[in-house]
């Protein structure tokens, strides 16, 4: 799978990229919402890992725009990452914006499992 990562914590984003590589995926790191949207428009992705707290605008907005985009190759599988639980953030996953919500710290086996399910 080709995975788009957006997390303003550069260290965490880079680690996720490396870990996903060990799971046989390819991943691209972005550190702001705008960077993520630009990258998604330029490349083709299967999935996106989106931190909900980003410096320029919220991760939910990134998800909304990815879902609304008609460009080819937009990621279909959207996974929210947050220090808050899904209940705390108002259940965006339940609204259908995200397919899954992972609370930090991220368990890589769990993430690997979600990606494997597709």
């Amino acid at each position, binding site marked *: 799978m080709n995975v788009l990562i957006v997390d303003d*914590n*550069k*260290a*965490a984003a880079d*680690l*996720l990229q*490396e*870990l996903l590589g*060990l799971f046989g995926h390819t991943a691209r790191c972005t550190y702001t919402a705008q960077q993520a949207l630009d990258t998604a428009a330029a490349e083709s992705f299967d999935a996106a890992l989106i931190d*909900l*707290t980003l*410096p*320029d*605008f*919220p*991760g*939910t907005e990134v998800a909304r725009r990815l879902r609304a985009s008609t460009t080819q190759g937009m990621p279909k599988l959207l996974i929210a990452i*947050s*220090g*808050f639980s899904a209940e*705390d*953030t*108002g259940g965006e996953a339940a609204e259908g914006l995200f397919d899954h919500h992972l*609370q*930090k*710290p*991220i*368990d*890589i086996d769990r993430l690997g499992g979600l990606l494997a399910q597709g």
Partner: protein
Amino acid sequence: MHAAARQLLRIEAAGIAADQHHRQGGAQRAGVGRQLQPGHVRHGLVGDQQVGLVRRLRQPVRSGLRLALQPHAQAPAGKALDQEMEKLAAAHQKQEELVEQLRHTQRKLEHAVRMRDDFMSMVSHELRTPLNTLYLETQLRQLHVSKGRLESFAAERLPAMIERDQRQIRNMVRLIDDMLDVTRMRRDALSIQPQPVDLAALARTVVEGLRHQAEAAGSEIALEAPGELRGVWDEFRIEQVLTNLLTNALRYGGGKPVEMVVQQMGGTAQVAVRDQGIGIAPEDQERIFKQFERTKDSRKHAAGLGLGLYITHKIVSLHGGQIGVESAPGEGSRFVVDLPLEPPAILPSST
């Protein structure tokens, strides 16, 4: 949520439940009081019914009412009845006042619980960020070990690895310290220990200490400071102020240069930190310094604007100084701290 926090919340929630019970009881009593017509009394709202009433009334308004509602074998007519009715009316009014007081207390308690809830949620969210990085590191190392890729642990790679771990640990320690500071401020127990300090030298040290963080943020910190700027401040706390302002500037500075200017203006030392990042909307400019209170919405928009500026503001106030911000969305922010060269003789309270 932490077990300790849950415990605290449970205690407060229990307090509210008890208050609610009182309030409902109060309302009931008030209702009963209103229905008491002279006729009812004469025809004997006595016996079980009245005893029940007395029992219900016992708690908050024990004195007057109980007396008024003692069963009377021979109901007095005329003047005596009027007196009784007056007593009832007075007791009724007292009840209403008590109910209002209880409502007020309840609102305050609910607010306190909400604040604590928000606070705990915020702290655990913030702690999860460095924890996440550390956890990802260990999971990566575990995978390397299980795949026999020991070259990842080569001697030349270890210093950087240790530095990364230590940075996350420092972040967590700082968050915990901040949390304790906020708790101290709430209890009004944060104090400063002013000593002679060279603010210019302190600023240089802080900027140097943030070099790695600035690199990671893609920003450069330009410092403009005189050779020396002496005053009497709590060095540790002022270092916290400078660090908080610069960390925010790096965090929200959009990877553009950050500028810090330290200068003396008469009897005041001024520190100004300017970034060219996302800026702060006018309606939020006051809020960010105020007692920590975050909405769900603000959490989604930005991490961090919760503790740092609140603490910064308090520390500056304790020194008899002032902090302000000039900003517009998309145009960066300029935080200005003015500190008297010596704190006032009588230190202001941190509240």
